[in-house]
């Protein structure tokens, strides 16, 4: 025997030959079915009955299981960035941003993916030769991306850093410092693709407003070239 089901029809008379049914007896099975209302639950259904056909979006587009958000920019134009604080990548007036606009449940899991192509960046320095030992001598070689979530938490707008991912302009490393005093530039790395992912699960219900793909450089004499880029979010509703 399987799991006991909550009956949808609770009152049903087993008539015998010659019985004259009353209206109450006849109404009973239909009334009990009507009284179920919206209370059908897991005890009425067989294990494993839900398939993807039951969880995807219907005509309303209101998916039960997954919800996709995406920004694809397959441009071949290169846009230069020499900002030392994060700014949102924008090509042709199109910011790399996804409007999310949903309020999550507590513990809901949302994942984010981004990728793109770095073009021919303008690099003038990849090492701080004049800097103090132990300082930030290697950092001019860095550029970085960030995924920034704009959310409303407890009624107040806020930003949440979903992660930062750093890359190098050149092949500079300690082994190819030909001199610690003579400025040299190591091999540039052009046309380098980037890709990264993040998962965010809030402890309480928050409103996901938007997410942005951002970038910055460490040294503003270097300019990062960003070509095509993509940004995705997948909401996995519980």
């Amino acid at each position, binding site marked *: 025997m399987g799991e006991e089901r909550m009956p949808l029809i609770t009152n049903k008379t087993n008539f015998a030959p010659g019985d004259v049914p009353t209206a109450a007896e*006849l109404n009973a099975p239909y009334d009990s079915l009507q009284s179920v209302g919206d209370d059908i639950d897991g005890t009425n259904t067989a294990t494993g009955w839900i398939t993807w056909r039951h969880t995807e979006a219907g005509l309303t587009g209101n998916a039960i299981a997954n919800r996709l958000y995406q920004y694809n920019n397959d441009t071949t134009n290169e846009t230069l960035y020499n900002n030392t604080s994060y700014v949102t990548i924008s090509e042709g007036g199109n910011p790399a941003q996804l409007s999310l606009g949903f309020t999550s449940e507590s513990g809901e899991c949302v994942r984010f993916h981004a990728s793109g192509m770095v073009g021919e960046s303008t690099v003038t320095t990849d090492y701080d030769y004049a800097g103090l030992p132990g300082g930030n001598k290697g950092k001019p070689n860095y550029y970085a991306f960030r995924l920034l979530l704009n959310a409303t938490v407890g009624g107040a707008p806020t930003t949440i850093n979903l992660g930062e991912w750093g890359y190098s302009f050149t092949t500079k490393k300690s082994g190819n410092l030909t001199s610690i005093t003579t400025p040299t530039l190591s091999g540039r790395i052009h046309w380098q693709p980037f890709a990264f992912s993040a998962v965010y699960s809030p402890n309480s219900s928050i409103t996901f407003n938007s997410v942005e793909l951002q970038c910055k450089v460490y040294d503003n004499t270097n300019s990062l070239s960003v070509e095509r880029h993509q940004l995705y979010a997948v909401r996995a509703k519980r």
Partner: protein
Amino acid sequence: MPYLKPYTYVDGNVLDAANQDANDSSAKIFINQDIVQADYENEAFDTSDFQRGELDPIVGHHQFTTGEVWGRFNDSAVTRDRSYFTAHTKTNDDAQTSNNSKQYQAIYEAGDTFVLEHDGSIFFTFGAQFISQSNDTNTKGKWDSRVYLMVATPTNPTPTIVQGTRCYTFEETSAVASAGTKDPGSVNYIGTPAPRDDFKQNRRWVQFQWMVNNLSAGTYRFFVAVNPKVEQGFSSARQFTAEVFYDEKYQAV
């Protein structure tokens, strides 16, 4: 919506067959095929109610309840076959490095056939190390072999590129000759042009994440391919996964 009884019985009335049939029929329709989301109690189901996914261990495909995942999962313990590519299949030396000569060669284990049962989207994640050797007979330069996700279908069997997935792998060369259309980077001492780096520009980790949107139900062949401009190149470490989302455009039947 909840079941509504169409006819209420009354004591002493002669039962009309049509009324009896209406009650039975409406109950039958509701129970058999008309229960909808609004009829269920909120948060009544958990994952144990879901149909289990199905794994095909031969090809590494897994069909989840909420979607499907195809492809070869990344495992650093697994040795991949080297997937070689060459421009020697092109008709002559000039064609080998011409931007107009396109012969896309598929990369092993970086493609699959997808059968979408309904309209949907596919999310691809690809990463691979590409290494290109120098050309021997043609002019050495910064030739860029371009890597794309490509797609072919039974009704359109000629593969077409997915433009947004374009990546590059470059010829290994110590020559200064300017040849390709993309500059892979170089070793230039400040103020003093110097030979291009011999080995660093020809080793590229190529990666992309890309969503192919609004696919109709049907069969698709997606694969990663390279249009080689070098006489010998290969890919070793690779990962390729594809995730199907039936969310978009799906209409219940």
